[in-house]
């Protein structure tokens, strides 16, 4: 049996209320909200966060490959999956590959893993931009999903068995973006609709046949795609009971492009029961359909951070700040030098520290060193340290400050001295927090972020953020809010 061993999604903390767009521009917007990646997030960092959650829910799973798919890669030429690989501290014999460019690549990576061999960690991530007032801006979203796909095995059972898949492909112009552009363009909607609906029906029929199930056997269907009109039309023509159609989450977090089929599937699997048959239909330059059956192992699988909880814990962002984070508007920066580019060789030497937040612990004194050191600050032992991964250790704010002068993509900088549970202190920048929203004693967790970019080089490292999801708390106390 082959299928999904674990799945997770990452929804960034911030939400843009669509009404705030029309309030500012006098037009555009709509109802509900969209998710917004923080100024220090990109598709790679969001992918890392999703993968961390998926792995936490299936600690025994050992991926033999990492596939990363996005339509908005942080780098071209350079593989982005290697940063995911490094952040997860995977062994060097695990291949890290990108599926790049097209929105369809996310669903494509999932399908390829399901029909392939070995244990594959598929990470799909996207960040959707649009010009101010446009539909892409308000109905797009940012987020990531991660799925561990492989054969059923001891300790890492398949929770959703792959039953079958099908694709229908046609070359037509619906949505496109020239390399280097931030905005997408699309053809008149009605044209795409006339292509997507029949392609979807074709793929749907063949997928059910390949899976050996009837339409009536399907308990939940996810229909998703950037073409809102086509997905609605296709879904209505399936003739399914309304409760069978899954909420595509577009109202609350927006359409997250390449990530969306995985993100919504994660949400559905988190709410599924053993025996459920789940189908995912993605309309993007054709149609792709996957059919899965939730297994008995579902009962023992506990999602570490459900999508629903992440959606519920979001906080609003003003439209002005959204525009500046998306570089649609450039606020005056502090009159301070911008950071210099990261040294490739220095970053290479400190890969475990920089990408995976691994410190060291002195074997004789137990003192924790962040970053790792060769000589102990207690007792002075030399080269008697063991690596100590701190990425999943929570901590408490000892003291903090707000720096209004330092250079930042989104001033002011909130900075705290954090004492970690079980030992270790690190003074670290906070993120997903308001300057007036922090107190001494607050609980924080680590998150992988992009600090800044210079000379086209992204500086990836870790920040701390408040622990908001009580289910995620590992320490003695939980900060409210």
């Amino acid at each position: 049996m082959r299928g999904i061993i674990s799945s997770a999604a990452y929804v960034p903390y911030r939400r843009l209320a669509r009404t705030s767009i029309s309030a500012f521009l006098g037009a555009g917007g709509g109802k509900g909200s969209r998710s917004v990646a923080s100024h220090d997030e990109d598709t790679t960092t969001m992918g890392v966060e999703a993968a961390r959650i998926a792995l936490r829910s299936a600690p025994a799973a050992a991926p033999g490959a990492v596939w990363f798919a996005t339509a908005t890669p942080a780098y071209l030429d350079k593989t982005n999956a290697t940063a995911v690989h490094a952040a997860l501290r995977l062994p060097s014999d695990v291949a890290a590959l990108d599926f790049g460019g097209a929105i369809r690549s996310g669903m494509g990576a999932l399908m390829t893993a399901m029909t392939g061999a070995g244990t594959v960690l598929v990470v799909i991530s996207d960040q959707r931009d649009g010009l101010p007032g446009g539909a892409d801006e308000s109905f797009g979203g940012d987020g990531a999903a991660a799925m561990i796909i492989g054969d059923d095995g001891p300790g890492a059972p398949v929770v959703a068995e792959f039953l079958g898949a099908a694709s229908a492909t046609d070359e037509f112009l619906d949505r496109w973006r020239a390399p280097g552009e931030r905005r997408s363009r699309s053809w008149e909607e009605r044209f795409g609709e006339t292509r997507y609906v029949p392609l979807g029906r074709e793929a749907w029929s063949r997928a059910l046949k390949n899976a050996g199930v009837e339409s009536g056997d399907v308990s939940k269907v996810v229909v998703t795609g950037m073409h809102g009109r086509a997905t609605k039309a296709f879904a209505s023509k399936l003739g399914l009971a309304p409760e069978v159609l899954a909420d595509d989450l577009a109202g609350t977090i927006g359409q997250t492009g390449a990530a969306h089929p995985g993100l919504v599937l994660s949400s559905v699997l988190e709410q599924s029961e053993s025996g459920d048959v789940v189908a995912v239909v993605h309309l993007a330059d054709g149609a792709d359909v996957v059919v899965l059956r939730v297994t008995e192992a579902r009962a023992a699988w506990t999602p570490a951070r459900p999508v629903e909880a992440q959606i519920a814990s979001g906080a609003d962002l003003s439209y002005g700040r959204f525009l500046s984070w998306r570089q649609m508007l450039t606020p005056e920066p502090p009159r301070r030098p911008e950071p210099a580019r990261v040294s490739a060789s220095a970053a290479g030497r400190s890969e475990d520290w920089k990408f995976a937040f691994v410190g060291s612990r002195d074997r004789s004194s137990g003192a924790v060193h962040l970053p790792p050191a060769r000589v102990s600050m207690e007792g002075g032992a030399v080269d008697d340290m063991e690596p100590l991964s701190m990425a999943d250790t929570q901590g408490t704010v000892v003291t903090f400050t707000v720096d209004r002068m330092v250079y930042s993509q989104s001033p002011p900088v909130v900075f705290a001295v954090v004492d970690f549970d079980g030992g270790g202190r690190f003074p670290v920048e906070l993120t997903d927090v308001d300057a007036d929203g922090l107190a001494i004693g607050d609980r924080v967790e680590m998150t992988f972020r992009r600090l800044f970019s210079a000379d086209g080089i992204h500086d990836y490292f870790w920040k701390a953020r408040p622990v908001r999801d009580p289910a995620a708390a590992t320490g003695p106390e939980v900060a409210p809010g």
Partner: protein
Amino acid sequence: MSSHGIRDRVAIVGMGCTPFGELWDKGLDDLIVDASTETFASAGVTKDDVDAYWLGTAQSGMSGITLARPLQLEGKPVSRVENYCTTGSEALRAAAYAVASGAYDMAMAVGAEKVKDSGYQGLNANNPPNDGTGRTLTAAAMFSMVAPAYAQKYGVDADQMSDVLATISAKNHYNGARNPRAQFRREVSKETIFASPRVAGGLGVFDCAGVADGAAAAIVVRAEDALRYTDKPLYIKALAFSTGSGSGLIDPGYDYTHFPECEWAATDAYAQAGITDPRRQLAFAEVHDCFTPTELVLMEDLGFAERGTAWKEVLAGTFALDGELPVNPDGGLKSFGHPVGASGLRMFFECWLQLRGEATPERQITTDRTLALTHNLGGYPGEMVSFVSVVGTELG
């Protein structure tokens, strides 16, 4: 293993100090020439009489050539030193030790910094290429964490703490208003201080040292030769230096209410100078008031007040110009700004003026005490270098 010091073996026999400020019309070379010329004249010597030179500059230039070129020194041993914000003091320490060792008869320390050519606010460090995981926080933000930690530990409420910090700021501006070389020469009311824009944490603009260009210099000789050059030399009683391991940043035991490096340097300096009760033996102290909470904590680290009591002493006026132990009678970093390489020597210059009775009358301290202390720190809470010196007008 011991720190022996060089008490009474070396004397300062000439000093100079430029006005500090936003000196748009002066380059580094001008600052160096101005301070050095004044210093040569003060000691009554020429550049050829000086056997060896040390230039303290943090970022304005590299190598001894930065000093040798503007002064046209030919063939002399000239070195450039850097040690964060203690850079100027380090130049003097090197020169004094060189004379004490017997290697040279006369040495000169010049501290100079041209800060205002960067076009940025505040001080900026040029970091070597790195992995991008280091802090980029401003010094103001790092030091801002001291005030709430101190207030919490010693039960000082927020309003009292604001009042304490404003008292320090107002005191230093009061002193600076009486010093023609200071960058800021106006008294500042507490109301103005309270109303100033926040820079980091609870610190406002008036809690932070200014940013200025400037230079200062000193010439040192063996103590027994001192009276050949001046009838009022300053004898070096102690030069102490302490460097932390940086572990305070990652040590859960560090509480941001004191600077161990400064305590260590002070303890060493008092031992070298034979001081047992600094508050009653020192005529005054020049300390590194980069931010107002720094000066508060230093009053305890340097032994001027018991732990947890400096805030009360500040409010009681103990460290005011007419107080029991005046601190920063020249106006401090608060009034002078902080040209990094020059600040340490600027503090010595105030000792030079005050102990010789040459300060401007409105800030001249009248006392029968003959010793003064200077203190620098560089770095951040938890990761610091610190310098403490004691100088005096009497031998023995």
